[in-house]
């Protein structure tokens, strides 16, 4: 067990170190988030719609599209010198590779999702609500479920001729539970509603995370096999 955790740790350590060195994905996702918020501002008539009313939905759509940029590149650096083949040939169980990659993608996207929320609050004067910790939990569950399926399908799409173009086609249909529960909970929390109103959403998000992580861990080996 501790060997298994050590291997997951090695993959997370390597991924985050690479990201620290290149800053490719975090910068791309962060810039995307800020620029999206700017464009959103000019795409809605602020005299007719209050940003608070649609803010939660915009936040989650920005997370989805920004996350797509990030997870789509998961296996890009890996393939440069065939390094991922070296990882696959090492005695690391394939599910540990998946969990490591998912965890490092989660750290990146979670940081970005917090940034997205901060940007929307700053730009549109939205309130954080009364339960920022619960909002943090909702974002954590949503992004974790997203990166789990995103990592699995990024491995699929990077093995095809279509590459990253295929990723949203595979990913979006299965993301619906995350959007419904995540955006719904965010909307209520930002409006200052009591936490008891979002317990159902959190359960749905937890079920989604459980399904996504378990499916990814079991199915990943069938994707990376050659």
């Amino acid at each position: 067990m501790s060997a298994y955790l050590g291997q997951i740790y090695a993959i997370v350590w390597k991924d985050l170190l690479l990201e620290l060195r290149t800053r490719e994905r975090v910068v791309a996702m962060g810039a995307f988030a800020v620029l999206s918020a700017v464009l959103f501002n000019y795409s809605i008539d602020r005299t007719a719609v209050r940003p608070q009313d649609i803010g939660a939905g915009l936040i989650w759509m920005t997370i989805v599209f920004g996350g797509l940029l990030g997870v789509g590149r998961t296996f890009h650096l890996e393939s440069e010198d065939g390094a991922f083949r070296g990882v696959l040939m090492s005695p690391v169980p394939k599910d540990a590779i998946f969990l490591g990659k998912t965890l490092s993608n989660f750290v990146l996207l979670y940081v970005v999702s917090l940034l997205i929320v901060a940007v929307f609050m700053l730009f549109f004067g939205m309130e954080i609500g009364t339960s920022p910790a619960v909002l943090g939990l909702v974002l954590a569950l949503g992004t974790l479920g997203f990166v789990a399926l995103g990592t699995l399908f990024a491995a699929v799409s990077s093995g095809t001729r279509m590459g990253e173009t295929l990723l949203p086609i595979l990913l979006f249909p299965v993301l619906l539970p995350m959007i419904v529960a995540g955006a719904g909970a965010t909307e209520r929390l930002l409006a200052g509603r009591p936490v008891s109103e979002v317990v159902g959403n959190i359960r749905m998000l937890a079920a989604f995370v459980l399904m996504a992580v378990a499916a990814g861990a079991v199915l990943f080996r069938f994707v990376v096999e050659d």
Partner: protein
Amino acid sequence: MSGVGVARAPASESPESATAAPALEARGIVREYGPVTAVAGIDISLQRGEFLTVFGPNGAGKSTLLGLLSGALRPTRGDVFVNGTRLDFGGVDWRHDVGVLSHQGFLYAQLTVEENLRFYGRLYGLRDLDRRIPERLADVNLGDRSNSFVGQLSHGMRQRLALARALLHDPDVVLLDEPYTGLDPSAAAVLRGVLTGLKDGRRTVVMVTHNLGEGIALATQLAIQVRGHFAWKGSREDVDVADFERLYHRVVEGRA
């Protein structure tokens, strides 16, 4: 339908020696990529300490063969065994016994030499990395480069580092895919030195190459692969080294 390979034996054939299992064994392995058959029925049985060099023209399926022997590729038919354990893509234990040096280095350009080895060391669950990494780097003359970024190394240095990575976990079975490609003479000399060191009686090596000179120098067994199967194979002692090039061309052109 396992092709018309010269070297073909039914999978049910009994093991040739009653003693220990061969260090590396392939039984009738076939690998198809859709309509293309890259490896068309190859049998290999190597005892501990043997060194097999596989020659062959481009497109003969040599890299696919090595992929199959390393468990990176799944055979369409047939099985590969390392120390008697059947390779299975999901398995992990036998992977401790196999080291692979490909023409790709499996290295991360944005990590340093030391970080690359530390990463792979952790994947292999090695505990003595602080001692082991400098040792391996000294073996390949990179002792003073441990903090250089791999992206800044020359091709020869990267290939030497890739060798250190392949041997980091001290594998019993070493698989080498065109290791001499693009190396300058001094890097080739270091590689030759390390490969010679591998002939310590404990390790089993398979190398695929089209460099006849380097290939023969270290081998105990030789094979020539043409269109997915071994069109010729023999023992190093039975071969007239001076005449091998002529033999090679005869075999490749199908006149043997």
